[in-house]
């Protein structure tokens, strides 16, 4: 083998760092932003983009973990309920004992991790389909959340979590901290999935769990980890959710978030059948969905119209993937 060839092989680390889907998404987002900038001059301003990024952060952050779960061939529809538990718990801690920022985050993350552990144990060791277990735990988590709520809302939440995004203290270089943190964690997850044996094993499990086990992959432990990770990130995302709102938290918190997260993951090019996916795509998917929502409002349309676009994006993104797969098979 020539030295040149060897160098080429060494350099071409695998897999390709970004997939086609990600380029397409970047293109769509750029086009969308450009269109919005032309039609509503207020769009491309800090006052419009910053809230957009803050709103994207929780969905994208939970999406990172959901991507990993879906890569393993699972799914977690309980994240909405889990967000409710973590945010009400944290909000109450902020109101009552007036805990500091660090304690609040730790509390939220720990609570989320615990909920994720429940899912993970049931799915990895109970040998039951993930969608059914998480449908069940979704109800349990909502019960737990409502119990902690007690009465209708939590009022008078202090601005401790403003660090994550509200106001000038919540930004560095104009970028809201919630989004910065999401970026960092997405990058870390991207690196982990690409460069570590543990990360690659998630893909193998999604491809064929039986064969992965035979190859020496600790399947149950990996699956457990995926759900615990989801819980941990749900905990952090819950802090973003509280930081996003005013001083009040009501019982609708978290409702429907599981579908929003799954939508972002799917639009990002991750295969619901497992074995293939990208956290980068998920981040872009979440950003696209939020951009549409923001654009629809700024254009003065009914805000709920953005859901129609989400539906269309899902069909187009997955449909394109299906057609590509069909073309590959026929080749």
């Amino acid at each position, binding site marked *: *083998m020539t030295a040149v*060839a*060897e160098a080429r*092989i*060494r350099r*071409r*680390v*695998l*897999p390709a760092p970004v997939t086609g889907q990600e380029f397409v998404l970047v293109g769509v987002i750029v086009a969308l932003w450009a269109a919005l900038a032309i039609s509503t001059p207020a769009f491309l301003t800090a006052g419009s983009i910053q809230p957009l990024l803050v709103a994207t952060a929780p969905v994208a952050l939970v999406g990172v973990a959901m991507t990993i779960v879906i890569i393993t061939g699972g799914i977690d529809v309980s994240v909405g309920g889990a967000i409710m538990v973590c945010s009400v718990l944290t909000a109450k801690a902020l109101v009552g004992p007036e805990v500091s920022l660090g304690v609040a985050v730790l509390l939220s993350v720990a609570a989320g991790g615990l909920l994720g552990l429940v899912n993970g144990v049931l799915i990895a060791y109970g040998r039951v389909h993930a969608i059914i277990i998480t449908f069940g735990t979704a109800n349990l988590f909502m019960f737990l959340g409502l119990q902690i709520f007690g009465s209708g809302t939590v009022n008078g939440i202090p601005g401790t979590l403003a660090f994550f995004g509200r106001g000038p203290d919540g930004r560095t270089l104009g970028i809201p901290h919630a989004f910065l943190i999401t970026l960092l964690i997405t990058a870390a997850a991207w690196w982990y999935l690409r*460069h*570590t*044996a543990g990360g*690659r*094993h998630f*893909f*193998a499990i*999604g*491809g*064929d769990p039986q*064969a*992965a086990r*035979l*190859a*020496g*992959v600790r399947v149950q432990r990996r699956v457990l980890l995926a759900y615990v990770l989801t819980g941990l990130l749900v905990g952090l995302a819950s802090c973003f959710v509280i930081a996003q709102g005013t001083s009040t938290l009501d019982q609708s918190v978290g409702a429907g978030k599981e579908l929003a997260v799954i939508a972002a993951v799917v639009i990002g090019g991750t295969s619901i059948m497992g*074995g*293939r996916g990208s956290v980068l795509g998920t981040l872009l998917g979440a950003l696209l969905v939020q951009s549409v929502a923001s654009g629809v409002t700024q254009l003065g349309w009914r805000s709920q119209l953005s859901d129609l676009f989400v539906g269309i994006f899902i069909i187009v993104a997955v449909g394109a993937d299906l057609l590509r797969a069909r073309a*590959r098979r026929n080749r």
Partner: protein
Amino acid sequence: MIDTNETPRLRLTAIAKRFGAVRAIQHADLIVRAGKVHALVGENGAGKSTMIKIVAGAETADTGEIEFEGERVRLGSTTAAIALGIATVYQEPQLFPELTVAENIFLGRELKRAGRVDWAAQNAKVVELLELLGLPERYATAEVGTLSVAEQQQVSIAKALASDATVLILDEPSAILTDAEIEVLFDVVRRLTAAGVAVVYISHRLDELFRIADEVTVMRDGRTIGTYPITELSVRQIAHLMVGEELSDARPHREVPEGPAVLELRGLSRAGKFRDVDVSVRAGEIVALYGLVGSGVSEIAACVYGIDRSTGGQLLIGADPVDIRSPGQAQRLGIALLPANRKVEGMFGFQSIAFNISAGHLGLLSRFGVWVDRAREKAVALKLIERLAVKTPHERQPISAMSGGNAQKVVLARQLVERPKVLVLAEPTQGVDVGAKEEIHRLITELAEEGTAVLVVTSDLPEALRIADRIQVVRGGTTTDEFGPDASQVDLLAAAAGGSE
């Protein structure tokens, strides 16, 4: 026969293995040498696959000794075998399509540096392996899903070698390959033996053994008949060793009524699978399409039944050319087909026998095509259960709870509900016990007597001889020679396995 001065890499002596009441291997010896290709041949059920499993550590022998490099060893598990350097490449590649070749090869035992996968080191090792196999280095970073079946097989071989294998078992590697791909495989095998690896090569295609094997061990009825240098044998001789003494099968000669063909294939082709297939079946006649696994014979059946579309040639029912697009259309034309893979293509697992029989005939068994006539369904099911001697307490028994032979009879019963004009049977007795096999063969003859045109697609040589009035041999994706019912097993095997010298 062969001089045995050097210590063989692997020696199996007096191996025996039984599964329940079935003696899979009665007495087998095998000696595998470093740097040699050792072919293991035998008919279906001769015990080859059990032998491989014992060597690979997937099954443990009941009695007998195994020596590796002269040392007595126990192969209690696949990991034990791999640790010794015995690697197996099965027909179905067990690979992850979304991962790259390098990742597949190192999955579960990644090379790491500072907590992360050392891609460079892995790739370098993989490139080395690929070089040894004479394969392009671009494979290393290609996703397995983007490779062809043949390339995936080469990856499987590379994966086996990555664990420093000194014995490599190739289980019918050529069955899924085209001629050009087989050349690449042979090239790989030659490189390996040159590097000192001992290769055990299992194949049905006897002609290719003369190009690749050094020695041949023949198995028959759970015994190793003998080991010979390939140079001392011809295809005919190997075929003779495989089938043994010809039993004078006291099969009464059937009178097939004269008449026009009911089913005729004229130069039927499907790109990449088979080409120019000519065969015709008259009413009341049983014709066997006999070919080895991978000869294209099973794809022909799928095409006749509209599962796959043909890309050339003609299919005639009666005298009319037809273009069959779906199994439903085939049924309406009076064709019924017993699929080859019972579990996947035939059975509705946890549903009842009656359900399994009536599926596909719901129009016939319904009033106005809407309401299932359950009394009639039950009557039909009971009649067929009786006719096929299905052993079951009642027709509501789930088919998944039945033995292979009984389940096969139920799936066959489904094909008989509407008295087809043409009955195509793909591997009708695969995985079926001896008793049920006899009964199925008797039934096939009965159906022909009643005027059905029967086409049996089989890779089971004695079966073809026992039931067919004419045997059409398929080799390399096309029909070659035709034999009458008096042909010898050796003739047929030699014709199908190549080299009719």
